[in-house]
């Protein structure tokens, strides 16, 4: 059923009895043209674009638990594209372009809200790094502008720009098109649209093996719901990518870390944009519901436990309360953890693998949500055509052999 004001009103009079399932719940077929392992936002988006743009509709998305139950449903929903390297700019801005009318395309309100992402600079080195980003972004056509401390304060009133604090705000880089979106809606919107185009979404189905034929090419996946034939397989399993890839004897340059986030009790609007600070390490935005959504760095050790240490929360809130000292009496309502798969250069991998027919989309680390539409779009292209889309051409596995890294972390290093 198409969502519209009319459908809402009609259903309101019909006791909302006529809303159909948003996505089908099929039994797995014996075989598919493409099997996507992982029913998060990236996997569902990949399936949607395979069907919508490449005419490949005989597709299954296989999800171990429930769709969107991994990092798609655990992130802090930040959307931005102000990355340093041209390769990253191309990928993330490709996503940002799609975000612009994603709600209309999917007929599902993903609540993309271009509230602005303001990344603060606290040291001379931060200022240099921010300006390098701004110049690089401007050349590429990505909006990113420098704000003075006073302009930062005007843009985000709760910000403390006093010169006397430990790391005073020296300014900030603002991407106005950056913002937030509703993470669950992205998952459900893609699921509904993909299902509508014939994609089978198979939940509670864990992949237990990847089968290859005599030539070494992909042939099928073994699952807890039986063997499913597949001409091509795309692994989009986030924190579990290494585990799944190992089933095809592919060893990845990944480590999975706990990443914690938290929300406050709901408040009337107070933080009008997304604030990020690399130096004192925290980020904050406010959801439509009124919760302050807060995140920071990962725990230090590899873990699949989806929990982490309290001291990480403490460090995060130290930073938040330093930036916004009016929030000390606000209370944390819920904290949680996700498992983030990080690469050595903090850039993702969207690539073919050495195994014919096997493709991988992983390594998004702490920042995958923003890329969901672009990632799915480019990865679908890669799978459908056996060659990458221009947006993901550089994000190969091969770069870890050649050394052609896309090092987004390095640019933030401090020295002298």
């Amino acid at each position, binding site marked *: 059923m198409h969502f519209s004001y009319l459908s809402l009103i009609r259903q309101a009079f019909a006791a909302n009895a006529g809303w159909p399932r948003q996505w089908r719940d099929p039994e797995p077929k014996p075989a598919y043209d493409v099997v996507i392992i992982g029913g998060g936002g990236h996997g569902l988006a990949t399936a949607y674009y395979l069907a919508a743009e490449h005419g490949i509709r005989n597709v299954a998305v296989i999800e171990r638990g*429930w769709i969107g139950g991994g990092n798609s449903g655990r992130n802090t929903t930040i959307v931005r594209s102000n990355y340093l390297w041209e390769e990253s700019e191309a990928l993330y801005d490709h996503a940002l372009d799609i975000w612009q009318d994603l709600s209309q395309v999917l007929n599902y309100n993903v609540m993309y809200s271009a509230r602005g992402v303001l990344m603060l600079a606290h040291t001379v080195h931060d200022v240099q790094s921010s300006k*390098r980003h701004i110049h690089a972004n401007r050349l590429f056509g990505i909006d990113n502008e420098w704000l003075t401390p006073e302009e930062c304060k005007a843009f985000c009133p709760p910000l*403390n720009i006093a010169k006397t604090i430990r790391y005073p705000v020296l300014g900030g880089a603002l991407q106005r098109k950056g913002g937030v979106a509703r993470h669950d809606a992205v998952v459900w919107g893609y699921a509904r649209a993909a299902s509508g185009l014939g994609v089978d979404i198979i939940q509670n189905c864990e992949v237990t093996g990847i089968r290859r034929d005599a030539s070494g090419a992909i042939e099928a996946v073994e699952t807890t719901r039986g063997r499913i034939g597949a001409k091509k397989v795309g692994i989009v399993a986030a924190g579990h990518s290494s585990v799944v890839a190992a089933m095809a004897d592919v060893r990845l340059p990944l480590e999975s870390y706990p990443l914690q986030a938290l929300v406050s009790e709901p408040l009337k609007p107070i933080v009008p944009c997304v604030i990020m600070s690399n130096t004192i390490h925290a980020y904050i935005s406010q959801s439509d519901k009124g919760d302050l959504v807060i995140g920071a760095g990962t725990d230090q050790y590899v873990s699949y436990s989806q929990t982490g240490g309290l001291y990480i929360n403490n460090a995060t809130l130290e930073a938040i*309360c330093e930036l916004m000292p009016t929030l000390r009496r606000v209370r944390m309502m819920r904290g949680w953890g996700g498992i983030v798969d990080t690469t050595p250069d903090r850039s993702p991998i969207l690539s073919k693998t050495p195994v014919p027919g096997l493709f991988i989309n992983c390594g998004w680390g702490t920042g995958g949500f923003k890329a969901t539409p672009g990632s799915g779009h480019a990865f679908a292209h890669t799978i459908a055509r056996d060659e990458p889309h221009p947006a993901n051409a550089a994000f190969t596995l091969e770069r870890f052999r050649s050394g052609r890294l896309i090092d987004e972390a390095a640019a933030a290093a401090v*020295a002298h």
Partner: protein
Amino acid sequence: MTAPFRTASGGRIKRAETLSFSFDGRPLEGHPGDTLASALLANGIHLVGRSFKYHRPRGILTAGSEEPNALVTIARDAGRTTPNLRATEVEIYSGLKASSQNRWPSLSFDVGGINDLFAPIFASGFYYKTFMWPKSFWRSVYEPQIRAAAGFGMAPEKPDPDRYQQRYAHCDVMVVGAGPAGLAAALAAMESGARVIIVDEGAEFGGSLLTDTSARIDGKTGWHWAADIIMSLGLSDKVTCLTRTSAFGYYADNMIGLSERITDHLEVPPAHAPRERLWQVRAKHVVLATGALERPLVFPGNDRPGVMLAEAARTYLNRYGVKVGSRVAVATATDSAYQAAIDLKAAGVEIAVLVDVRPEGGALVELAREAGIRVELGASVCDTVGRLRISSLAIGRIGADGRATRFETIACDGLLVSGGWTPTVHLYSQSRGKLRFDAASQTFLPGVGAQAQISAGAANGTFGLESVLNEGYAAGEAAARAAGKKTFGAKTFSAEATDAAPAGTLGALPTDRDPSRVRAFVDFQHDVTAKDLKLALREGFRSIEHMKRYTTTGMATDQGKTSNLNALAIAAKELGKDIPSVGLTTFRMPYTPVSFGILAGVARGDMFEPVRQTAAHASALALGAVFEDVGAWKRAWYFPKAGETMHQAVNREVTAVRQTVGLFDASTLGKIEVVGPDAAEFMHRLYTNPFLKLEVGRCRYGILTKDDGFVFDDGVVGRIAADRFHVTTTTGGAARVLSHFEDYRQTEWPDLKVWLTSTSEQWATFAIQGPKARDIIAPFVEGIDISAAAMPHMSVRGGTFLGVPARLFRMSFTGEFGFEVNVPADYGRAVWDALYPAVIAAGGAAYGTEAMHVLRAEKGYIIVGQETDGTVTPDDAGLAWAIGKAKADFVGKRGMLRADLVAPGRKQLVGLETVDGTTVLEEGAQITPVAVPAKRSHAIGHVTSSYQSPTVGRSIALALLENGRARHGERLYVPMPNGAIAVVVTDPVFYDKEGKRLDG
């Protein structure tokens, strides 16, 4: 004047003393011992808040921290305003100012209540289906409206002036919850001599004993028994008793997070007391005696003010001396509500009717009837009436078909409900213990634990006071034993009480109305109804997590404490599954909300992170230096004289170094002493440069790469003796370089005899740079021949400086003749204070990091982190000469041979000069071959450093440029928002290319 609903006697409030407080500006009175909720109820006020979505009027549902409805803001002043507090937890003091939230213009007339009329449209998830047209309206119209309507309280306007504290603690036995089970457990643990911490979120210990005035334990009343135990716990120096303390999180390896509220209940907080305190307790064993929570019933109109949990009403009566109405009805699926009705009736409250959904009722039916209470068995609540307070309920007989037939409407001003008791297993579940579903009691109970803990009492599904006490004592004893204490065996208590039983009902009650039309609330705060849940299931949100997220049930500030099990039961019934196969949503920390303040603790202002200052910091400060943050260090950035701009000061400082002499505090550089017979071999393997043949007394500029072959750090290394090196690192790199060294020393080459010591803070280091450098230091140096012949460029000598032991380097990061002197940090300020007047007398100046940057940029010297960014090889940075080509191996040798690192077209370090000579490029600016690049153009390089150079009299810049070394003389462009700047590529050395000035 006594409040109208206050009983004549009884309860634990101090009646002799009256406290004035206000609610929404209305002056009211209560007594010490009252919560805001009990005081409001005593004044006949039930309407306390508005719900989230429909802005429906809401009253007080509970008497504890699980309260979903009665959220208020408490304001002491503009900085001490706390939103979203539960009226059931707020203790009143004289002058307390409370106000309701989420309403405009007033609580009783809230414009937002119009949402209630649109409820059929505002079904679960409706916002995903709309607000999409026209596209621009989401940001400009819909979202601002939604945001304004959402949220509850407002964040404070001013920074919070209160203090927060954090402490760590260890104990043998940690007891969470000080009800009967917890008190008995603490008693047992105390008797074993264990160190015990017992906490309870309430204002006083006792838990359910405070409510159950009929309880008798070992011949004493419950109150007296508890008081005796509490006193003996308090007298023990091994027991820490914490009231108003919530155990909010259970972490790895038995660490418990506690949030202690210290001053919020006080009229005048002590001047130096923290408002709250975070405890991080490492316990050998934990007893979870967290009790159980009563569940509401799900029926149409179950959310009106005046509808309250039965045991809460009993608590308000017995503990606070408050009658929750004049004529109340009771609806129940358990026995415990009978006792509430009996107690209220005895206190003079008229019981309109007691409706029990169980056809047979329970053990207390006769007792209730004897007390004169009308009991209707096998009956349900079909509906309620009343806008701001319940005024009547309609009751119906439950038929065999599971539907109710309405037979009577009964007037009332209160409705007490009880659906049964849910054991509080939150912390247990956080500890990663597995839950099991107990079919008999229809509850989740602790199953196989994952940490050193034990659950006792209602939290463990045990009900009945005597059983609870005995189990609590046994748990405390077992915990003490597990913690290594000698215990004295079991103890049994003899107790009598009206006992709550866990069983009850789950999910929606039978009604005579169309379930798809009525609103029977499950999650009160978020306005989630039974039909919302069913809609979600219909739309395919069948995982319990999907249902939760789509409807937002259980996502409110109470995190579903009163609602989750009902929601789960409704889903299970709808899906035709049993409850355990539908599953639970995850219990996450915190159990109840925790102030940001305690998690941030004392980290604010200068306490946010330790400030590192050099030995001469105070002297620089006295000279008026402006400082910059570099890592945790404060470094003197420049030294402005009165009236000077930064630019003028930096020019003066640079000129002083070039023409006379400058003094620079380089103490923040990292320093490592590398010592041992294999020290030279170790250095040789770590650095790209050769080190084996470096003579004693000589220095070398060394480059560090990691095994990936990219520049990692740099610095000058002096060979002090055959087996001893003085290594310097960048300021920011000190810790990571030492870690890198230690890694290879300990794990890669453990056979090498070499030891590393960080000496960064042992040496104060000052650079004296410029033509007059030797004249400046000569008077202070003893035991070192500093003549050019005896001490050439890049040499190091030991001696004394100003009478203290020193290491004197002849070296330069400015391109000028100069020295760097290292003295023990304790003498650092004295040395600076001796050098500075000499420098000034010679016509020189102190210079800061900015001048240092300009000076080195004029010479084309790189700064790691500015000219490099983790993707730059030594060759890229023009440092190929520093790679020991003949070395068999060094860290990074293989890495830098990888295909991309030797590919043509890499970015290389160059100089840039703007064509007009005056424009200073912006650092980070991009370089293109054309003046007006198209969108998405490729940048062939970027500016890494850029300054106005007073020495060469023009602007200069360093840049990384593709094929840069082959482009010298080429004209390129730096596109800026207001037009491109033409530049010419040059050699990166702008001054004294021959390096003659190093010789003095």
